[in-house]
């Protein structure tokens, strides 16, 4: 039999109906819902008197609008309205909801895996582009718009053309201080924000195999920043070990049977991809973005580039515009850029291992004068665990603000906003103009790089720092 990729296998398993000249009708195994992209979809159902076909395969939480201090006091009336609408919709249509009172609440892409809802081989959608995160488990997971949310609610299916396949193979091992975040930023930096457009990416290679599930989630999370429809990683022992014992994962004998099925999903030896890119892990350094899209980055020992270094007029203009927005001069060493804000959080980097790594840099030190630093755990469970381990205290002692879970300053839809003109070392995923607040200057970095920037007040090369053991 012809060797197959995991993408082929999951796709074929989910075709409900196929006809020449039409996209495939694909079954959706898990539909995650949040407050921002769902109200119009529920309204659409109501107007036509339609029901939710499989509320049991749907799971909702609130994360985008949620304040991370005084979470029950939402002063923004429109935001409050949207949260109330989600509560009402979930009640009316019988959808399980992790609301603000729930211990399971958190960023939708943090809680799906944490609760074991995310499993290998599933098709997973959510009205959020970072749904690609769940691909870390060997699931086919992608973001959809509100019309598609309505379609999935009503039919549990989507009409989809199969995208092309792109293999990105990270050979070898990562150096000290180099993280999953640096790997994905380096990929986007080298190949551009459009490299994955029209593709599903499968990440392979030794460096990926050696990563924990949380690191793999960081990589898959930002596949969308490379333009890809989805990003995924074939499941292995690391995946199975993570899932064992989670609330919604199969139990006992069922789990062992599931593992057998999951193991067979991995891409076959010799499977063909439409395109393959190979990267040597040892060439990747800690990364910092200097511009206004995630490809505008360099290694921490680099400098802000000159627009003339770029080939096309369009690129040169984009770089000029970006540098003006960022208030940066060409030739400035990255380590000379002062930082006034630090944000550790978001669906990219707010999990326990991210907080442990950041705390190992922060332990016993103080946030630099003039820097405001936030740590926003990805879920209430992460928060609880971090408090139990003493991580929260390390951050608080150093002068960080320790918050409740939510999307927070990643997108400034809630009170956590970065002021105009200020530089923010952020562990989030998008450095677009105005993303963290109008005029805010975002630099995407890893949790250890963000932690170090908080302590020094500017970017520093974490490879030259000693980490303190924290647990």
């Amino acid at each position, binding site marked *: 039999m012809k060797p197959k990729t995991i993408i082929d296998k999951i796709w074929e*398993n989910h075709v*409900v*109906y196929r006809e020449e000249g*039409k*996209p495939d*009708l694909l*079954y959706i*195994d*898990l539909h995650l819902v949040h407050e*921002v*992209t769902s*109200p*119009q979809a529920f*309204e659409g159902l109501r107007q*036509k008197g*339609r029901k939710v*076909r499989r509320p*049991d*395969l749907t*799971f909702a939480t609130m994360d985008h*609008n949620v304040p991370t201090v005084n979470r029950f006091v939402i002063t*923004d009336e*429109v935001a409050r*309205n949207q949260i109330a609408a989600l509560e009402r919709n979930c009640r009316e249509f019988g959808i399980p909801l992790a609301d603000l009172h729930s211990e399971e609440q958190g960023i939708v892409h943090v809680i799906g895996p944490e609760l074991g*809802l995310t499993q290998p081989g599933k098709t997973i959608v959510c*009205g*959020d*582009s970072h749904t690609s995160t769940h691909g870390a488990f060997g699931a086919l997971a*992608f973001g*959809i*718009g*509100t*019309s*598609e949310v309505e*379609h999935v609610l*009503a*039919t*549990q*299916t989507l*009409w989809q*053309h199969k*995208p092309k396949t792109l293999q990105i193979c990270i050979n070898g091992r990562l150096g000290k201080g180099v993280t999953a975040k640096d790997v994905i930023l380096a990929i986007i930096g080298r190949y551009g924000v*459009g490299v994955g*457009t029209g593709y599903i990416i499968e990440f392979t290679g030794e460096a990926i195999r050696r990563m924990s599930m949380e690191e793999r989630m960081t990589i898959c999370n930002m596949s969308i920043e490379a*333009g890809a*429809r989805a990003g995924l990683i074939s499941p292995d022992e690391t995946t199975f070990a993570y899932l064992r014992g989670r609330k*919604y994962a199969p139990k006992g004998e069922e789990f062992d049977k599931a593992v057998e099925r999951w193991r067979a999903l991995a891409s076959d030896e010799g499977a063909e991809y439409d395109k393959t890119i190979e990267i040597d892990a040892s060439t990747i350094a800690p990364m910092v973005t200097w511009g206004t*899209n995630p490809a505008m980055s360099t290694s921490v020992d680099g400098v802000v580039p000159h627009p003339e270094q770029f080939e096309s007029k*369009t690129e040169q*203009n*984009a770089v000029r*515009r970006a540098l003006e927005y960022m208030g940066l001069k060409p030739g400035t060493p990255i380590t000379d850029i002062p930082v006034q804000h630090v944000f550790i959080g978001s669906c990219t980097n707010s999990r326990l291992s991210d907080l442990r790594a950041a705390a190992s840099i922060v332990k016993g030190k103080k946030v630099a004068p003039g820097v405001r630093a936030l740590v926003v755990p990805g879920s209430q469970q992460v928060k609880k665990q971090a408090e139990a381990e003493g991580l929260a205290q390390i951050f608080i002692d150093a002068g960080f603000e320790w918050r409740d879970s939510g999307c927070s300053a990643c*997108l*400034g*839809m809630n009170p956590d906003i970065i002021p105009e003109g200020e530089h923010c070392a952020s562990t989030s995923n*998008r450095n*677009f*103009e*105005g993303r963290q607040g*109008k005029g805010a200057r975002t630099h995407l970095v890893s949790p250890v790089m963000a932690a170090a920037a908080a302590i020094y007040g500017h970017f520093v090369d974490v490879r030259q720092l000693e980490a303190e053991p924290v647990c």
Partner: protein
Amino acid sequence: MKPFTIHRGKTAGIDRANIDTDQIIPKQFLKRIERTGFGQFLFYDWRYLSDGTPNPEFELNRPENEGATILVADENFGCGSSREHAPWALQDYGFRVIIAPSFADIFYNNCLKNGLLPIRLDKEDVRYLLRQSERADYELTVSLEEQRVFDDEGFSRPFDIDPYRKQLLLKGWDEIDLTFVYEAHIAAYERRHCPRP
């Protein structure tokens, strides 16, 4: 969905690549629970100065672009967030067609679901249209039936679109109603696979 068959209208150009959905509709406007009324917030941070007055430098505020219904931009248009508020805002503002060398996948799909037609043309053709868009009197015709974009001055280009999506757009059909036709297939799939949480 409003059917799309043929459209003639004025073009407006924004000569930038990677225009993301955070620019098209900034996040502070995503809290509404309706599908309508987003046009006033389109490109908000580019369109208005800090004091709330229109930014005269921004392309859509130039007098020659008043009343434009076809937007022309550079590659990777609509990248970033999956927010369908982006096509809602473009449409509510008055656009019926977006032309670019490439689009982000989710944005492209979102447009088609709303009767807003995204058209991919070669880079050189887009350059030509961006230049022409600087004129106040330049108009373009888009025929979905013929899959062709043309002007009165000899420019005429075919474009690709998935036949299934084309049909839906031409008829303005509700996709969910169509999918219900396959209900028996969905039920059979569920019996075979027993999907559960």
